[in-house]
């Protein structure tokens, strides 16, 4: 195996071509959107991808959850351990609060087959493409935003960026990449059968983005 490495690199280095470093002129796009415009753009894009969006104040969040979860037939909700404490005390008793406390292996069956919905925070959103951005952590593991049929994501209005490039540079991603960074731009979908769109293939069938204003 080591031998292959040397063979391959040798061939690549042994090139008569001048290995000149080509200057890359990446034009940084800026739209100069106001906060309202960012929220509008983000919502519009997400909705066109069949995600649901709602603008709420911090205070309205609990009411929204208590009203909407039962309405949608959600019997339990998976919450990350960092915000679980805060939220769980306010959520209606009929709705079971699940916490991702132990490793995935210990409860994968319940996660896959019996978890109706999850709620996660985000580290931001991108208005241009209509994407929410997640950096999963020990408190909010990766599968939270993938396995349950409904994923509710909390986006703070101050963390909405215009472009992907902006969030990468502003948050200094290159200095410290998380184990798994995710851009999510809608519910799971496919067009593999006669190019007809179908939703909820493997990832969540519903994505609900709650944009929180302070």
């Amino acid at each position, binding site marked *: 195996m080591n031998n292959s490495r040397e063979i391959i*690199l040798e061939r690549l280095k042994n090139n008569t071509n001048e290995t000149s470093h080509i200057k890359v002129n990446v034009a940084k796009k800026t739209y100069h959107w106001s906060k309202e415009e960012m929220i509008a753009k983000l919502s519009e894009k997400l909705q066109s991808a069949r995600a649901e969006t709602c603008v709420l104040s911090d205070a309205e969040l609990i009411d929204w959850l208590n009203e909407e979860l039962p309405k949608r037939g959600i019997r339990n909700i998976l919450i990350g351990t960092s915000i679980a404490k805060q939220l769980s005390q306010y959520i209606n008793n009929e709705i079971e609060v699940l916490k991702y406390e132990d490793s995935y292996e210990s409860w994968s069956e319940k996660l896959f087959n019996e978890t109706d919905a999850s709620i996660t925070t985000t580290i931001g959103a991108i208005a241009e493409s209509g994407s929410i951005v997640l950096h999963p952590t*020990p408190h909010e*593991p990766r599968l939270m935003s993938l396995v349950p049929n409904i994923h509710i994501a909390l986006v703070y209005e101050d963390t909405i960026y215009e472009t992907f490039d902006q969030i990468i540079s502003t948050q200094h991603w290159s200095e410290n990449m998380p184990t798994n960074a*995710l851009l999510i731009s809608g519910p799971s979908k496919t067009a593999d059968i006669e190019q007809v769109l179908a939703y909820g293939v493997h990832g969540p069938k519903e994505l609900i983005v709650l944009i929180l204003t302070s």
Partner: protein
Amino acid sequence: MQQIKSLENRIDEALSNEQLHTNFRSAMSFLMEKRRDQFPDEKQLNNEREVASSIRSNSVTQLPELLIKLEENLEKNNIKVHWAETDLEANNIVYQILKDANAKTVVKGKSMVTEEIELNEFLDNKGIEILETDLGEFLVQLANEKPSHIVMPAIHKNRKEISKAFFDHFPEFPYTEDVDLITQQVRKILRERFRKADAGISGVNFAVAETGTLCLVENEGNGRMCTTAPPIHIAVTGIEKVVEKLSDIPPLLDILTKSATGQEITTYFNMISSPRREGEKDGPKSMHLVLLDNGRSKIHQNNDMQETLKCIRCGSCINHCPVYTQLGGHAYGTVYPGPIGITLEPQKQGITQLGELTSLCTMCGACGEVCPVQIPLPKLINKLRSEAVEGNNTNELIEGTRSKRKPLESLSWQVWKQVYSSPFIYSIFSKIATKLNFISPKKLGKWGKYRITPRPSKQSLKELANQAGFDNE
């Protein structure tokens, strides 16, 4: 790849299949329109292509340095890097990882490079169950076929054909042609497989050297399932997929998704930089990246053809190729079809075996116009044609140069050259052709099957010009 039927037979079969023609016509028109909608401003599009092209040119010219850096940063992130010179080596590496972990069931995301090395067949022979999870690939696997397009693998199948294959395999489900219902059933079937799989295998869209990050695009979520749920994740990639910096990603991602499926962005963009770390509760416990050469380093050494390696596998050239639209993917008999296929495959597998593929092109130039990274595909295809018939047959960089030179054809061109490079001889030829135009051939090979055979005029332009009083010098 076994070519049981000859190219000619496969072409005949494709052309006589009306259903195939209809499927591909509608699919290609759909994809071309979707891409057009994403690029309303031509000037802006060309700027974006310039940027993407320079990023990829950088990747290719700096390839050895970037691969070393990538390896360094991946290993720092606890992702084990393996180098495979050949397809067999890559398959063995993957198998060994699975064997060491006693892994018996594998779930797999869509990956053209694993098609290239025929990983599924290899693992199958070793008694490991490997299941395609991308819906298109899953359906193609059910029908025991190969994908016919690099981005939309089941594009050659219509609803009826898909439903039949699905319900033949899963008779426990009620028959339906409803796309939503089929999709839900596939979801149900695959969910348990994701949960229980011993390992997940994926490709890589971009590998970032700066941060040791593997990036994957997808819409369904199966890719994330394969790379997150099972305890082992093995990623396989061609060596050319490395990019230098994280800041290179946004422009590449943007032009990739818009060119490939006409989407501004895919549902998920997955950037993996590590297996499960201490304290984390999910993610694979171990991660591997297999760097595959399989002919790429040889292409790299060939300065004339090196740009082939800039490809980001968007499939746009394929979608716009009028020949592909007529043939579909299977007729090519290779993993990569269309313009990128006829450029890449003869270089990888040799001209002796695959030189004829370069004839599957009218030089219309549509591919070169849409390639997001500005690969001059028509120019490269033309160069391969030249290598095939008059190349230097001691050329070590491409196998089979000059092997397609045929005595009759080369003689014809010699004669043509003699006539057309000598104004004197040409003037005699022209007199004969015009005055005796009634003896021009009735048939010209297959030309006459579809068109009337043209006949030279009674007078050449030279004569007419002269008669009309135009100066001749």
